[in-house]
């Protein structure tokens, strides 16, 4: 644990699809490390970031595109008490996705709600 002080609000804002670039994976690695610190954490999935949570991802180091499927790690977030996962409704709908397409439970919020949440943060880590 770091020295105490005011609990800060951290938002991880994910806007990129998985696999095409490494941002989604390495963003998740920050979230997991960050879980050891005493902060108020939320994850927002916006634009192509919503694809990170798509169910049924199928690839391994020895098959498919030769990368491991890391989507199951989102399920582990609960164990780290990270349960504020927000998906922007508009981003989801534009891509033809529905709530049941996601690998973990999320809160679907509209753009105005997301704006309000963003404004409350101390730190936004955008990937």
């Amino acid at each position, binding site marked *: 644990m770091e020295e105490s002080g005011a609990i800060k609000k951290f938002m991880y804002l994910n806007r*990129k*699809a998985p*696999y095409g670039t490494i941002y989604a994976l390495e963003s998740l690695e920050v979230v997991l490390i960050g879980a050891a610190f005493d902060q108020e954490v939320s994850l927002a999935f916006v634009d192509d970031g919503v694809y990170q949570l798509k169910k049924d991802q199928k690839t391994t180091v020895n098959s*498919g595109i030769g990368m491991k499927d890391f989507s199951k790690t989102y399920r582990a977030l609960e164990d780290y008490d990270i349960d504020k996962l927000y998906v922007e409704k508009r981003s989801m709908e534009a891509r*033809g996705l529905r709530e049941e397409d996601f690998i973990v439970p999320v809160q679907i919020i509209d753009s105005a709600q997301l704006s309000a949440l963003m404004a409350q943060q101390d730190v936004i880590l955008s990937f």
Partner: protein
Amino acid sequence: MLHIVNKSPFDRNSLQSCLRLAQPNDAILMYEDGIYAAFKGTVIENDIQTTLSKCKMYVLKPDFEARGMNEGNVIPGIQSVSYSEFVDLTVQYSPVQAWL
């Protein structure tokens, strides 16, 4: 001529430029994050439908399976291909333009 598109149509303008400049009977392969254009229910499905009436369209299976998409949701008329068939397409068509 073969157009290969590896960018999400929601993030970049690559596919849009490809569709603008593709000629009738050209082929278009979607791979990497480009695969997201090939699925039903998106806001660009109509553009894809229109393109299908003049061009052949393909989508790389290992890329869409990695991303949790499946054959059943591919827009009808788009053909799912393997890396090996990707190679075949580059043999069949020339030149190859990568819309990076």
